[in-house]
């Protein structure tokens, strides 16, 4: 419904003021054919292009960080007025280009430096990870959940922490065993890491890597897993429980509609920072779009009962659905990082009754209790 109103406002605006075509350009860090980050951004770009008749889009893929500036030059030369730079590493190049082209609007994904013509945006999964953690905690028999991580950066630490909090909310003694592979895309390393985790006794898997490898390796051994970034249900229909999915198009459409309507100009973006979660529809819980929980696991999740501090005796299935509903609420009636939370060294990180600020979430380096394995840059 909100989408309809947005579209209606934009169309009326266009009829009233007759604004011309807008050309927007995307700078991608990987190939659009990957099965993760860049692919998802490109789906968002196409969605925006299909939604708005006045929008023309261009993109360039596999852009090295040192070359971003020169690609921006070329896009501007072609009349591109809005540029989305979709990797943290482009931050300085975007800042410099923004000074060079004060009339062009820039939006930088995952960054934190803004300017009058530079906005930042991010669709984050931490709420979804918590829900996946609840299910993982219910499904593990060994009490060990495996996690294959790309890089030990705050984004992944936040996600693994939220996931672990979910696991332990259902299964207080369970552990999350973490392995890092130091690459965003490396199926061979992901396979090795998964096998190592299986050898250590893990029997449920989640991961951050841009291929369905972990899902496939786990399924071969008959272990359930959670898909990452793109829908991976089809790779193992009997074993993918749920997962996290992204809708960058939601952000792109909102942003571009506001540019078109004249709400965003190259002069007023200093405070425009999208941190979009479940309520805005930027992320989704599911093994596939529209499949929050694989029906094949509904029975096991309904059978597992927990004693929840808020809901009392409740099945994990219902708990996931209830909390999902609460977190989709704009009021954010529930948050995974709700105090008191101690890190695994015993330091109180979130005091009773408090939640973390966006900045604290974005710079999280500590590990919650239950996380097992190396954790570079862990605070003392």
């Amino acid at each position, binding site marked *: 419904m909100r989408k309809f109103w947005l579209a209606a406002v934009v169309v009326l605006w266009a009829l009233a003021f007759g604004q011309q075509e807008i050309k927007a350009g995307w700078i991608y860090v990987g190939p659009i054919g990957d099965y993760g980050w860049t692919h998802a951004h490109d789906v968002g770009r196409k969605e925006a292009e299909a939604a708005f008749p006045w929008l023309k889009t261009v993109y360039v893929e596999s852009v090295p960080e040192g*070359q971003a500036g020169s690609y921006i030059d070329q896009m501007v030369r072609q009349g591109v007025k809005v540029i989305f730079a979709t990797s943290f590493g482009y931050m*300085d190049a975007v800042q410099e280009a923004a000074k060079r082209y004060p009339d062009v609007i820039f939006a930088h994904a995952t960054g934190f430096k803004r300017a009058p013509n530079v906005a930042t945006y991010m669709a984050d999964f931490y709420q979804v990870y918590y829900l996946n953690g609840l299910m993982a905690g219910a499904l593990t028999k060994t009490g060990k959940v495996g996690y294959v991580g790309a890089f030990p950066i705050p984004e992944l630490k936040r996600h693994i922490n939220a996931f672990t909090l979910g696991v332990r909310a259902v299964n207080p003694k369970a552990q999350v065993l973490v392995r890092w592979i130091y690459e965003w895309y490396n199926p061979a390393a992901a396979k090795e890491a998964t096998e190592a985790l299986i050898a250590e006794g893990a029997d449920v898997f989640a991961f951050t890597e841009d291929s369905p490898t972990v899902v496939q390796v786990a399924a071969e051994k008959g272990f359930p897993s959670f898909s990452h970034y793109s829908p991976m249900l089809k790779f193992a229909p009997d074993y993918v429980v749920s997962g996290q999915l992204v809708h960058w198009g939601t952000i792109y459409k909102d942003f571009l509609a506001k540019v078109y309507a004249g709400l965003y100009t190259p002069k007023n973006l200093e405070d425009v920072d999208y941190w979009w979660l479940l309520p805005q529809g930027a992320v989704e819980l599911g093994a596939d779009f529209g499949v929050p929980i694989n029906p094949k696991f509904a029975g096991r999740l309904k059978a597992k009962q927990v004693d929840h501090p808020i809901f009392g005796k409740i099945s994990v299935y219902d708990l996931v659905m209830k909390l999902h509903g609460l977190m989709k609420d704009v009021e954010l009636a529930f948050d995974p990082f709700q105090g008191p939370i101690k890190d695994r060294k015993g330091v109180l990180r979130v005091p009773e009754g408090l939640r973390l600020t966006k900045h604290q979430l974005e*710079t999280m380096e500590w590990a919650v209790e239950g996380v097992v394995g190396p954790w570079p840059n862990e605070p003392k």
Partner: protein
Amino acid sequence: MKLVPRPAPKAFEVVWVSTLAVLLAFLSSLLLLWLYGTPPLEAARAIAGGVFSDPRGLAEVLRRAVPLILVGAGLALAFRAQFWNIGAEGQLLLGAVAAGGVALFSGIEGPGLLFVMALAAFLAGGLWALFSAFLKARLGVNDVITTLMLNYVAIYLVDWLIHGPWKGKSAFGFAYTDRFPEAASLPLLPGTALAWPGVVLALLLAVLFAWLLFATKLGFEVRVLGENPEAARYAGVRALFTLSWVALLSGGAAGLAGFVEVAGTHHKLLAPLQISLGYGYTGIIVAWLGRNHPLVAVLTGLLVGFVFAAGDVAKVALATPFQLVQVVNGLILFFLIAAEVFLRYRVVWGVRRG
């Protein structure tokens, strides 16, 4: 059809065969783009427009060419001595590491900082190569293997530094060092992204290497050692001494390329594959196409720089997928290398009766 070896080609033959190869390469690239669905004329116009229409486009050719010329001129020297240095990529990275270390931790202020960074980069790249030269001259260890393998050591060294001890406090947990201080940035040509001192450095070094090679005793020894190691030994050329100089200079030049990349473009250390876009490997082709002459390597470096910059333009202006751009880049280099055959051999048609 037979290929018959022929004596050293004359200069005009080299020029016309190479020019023809370049033309054919560009024509076949346009053909490939046409097959993909881009009209050739439009492609040529878009690429020429993107590269030559404004100073930023033109500067981009030079920006890509500078590391290629530095690496290529140094490798020309190394290959003359039959020091098969495949390790310029690692030497470039070591140069970047040394320059970055000085920029971040030396505390030097003012213009002296850039000078010390360059010196450190030169020494780091040079010493990295010197190690392989020593193994070759003293123990007869295959230099192709050692130089190549040291590339991986360099890659993992950079990875370790940016994930570990040198990880920046301002990097938000991502694998970068902090940004270098302002004094560690090479000045840019106004209105472009080109660090002009890099251009000067590349030209100076190419001239210096050419002078060394053709006008000094060391250069003479290098050439003798490369063309006939037995005769060289007989004539009293000190293999270890000569090879060491060659390694130091060629590795040092690659190290300087690393310095120019971090001080001119990146201003921090980052993932090794982002610091160098394979310049250490492409530099081998630059040297080879330049017939191992440091001054010709300037021309071939510019040519390859143009090919890369043109590919960048095609990716945006023609929405050419990056895979196709890489195929075209490979195709052009293939043509250039294939042309070598026609300079070294004469084609004889039909069966010759002896």
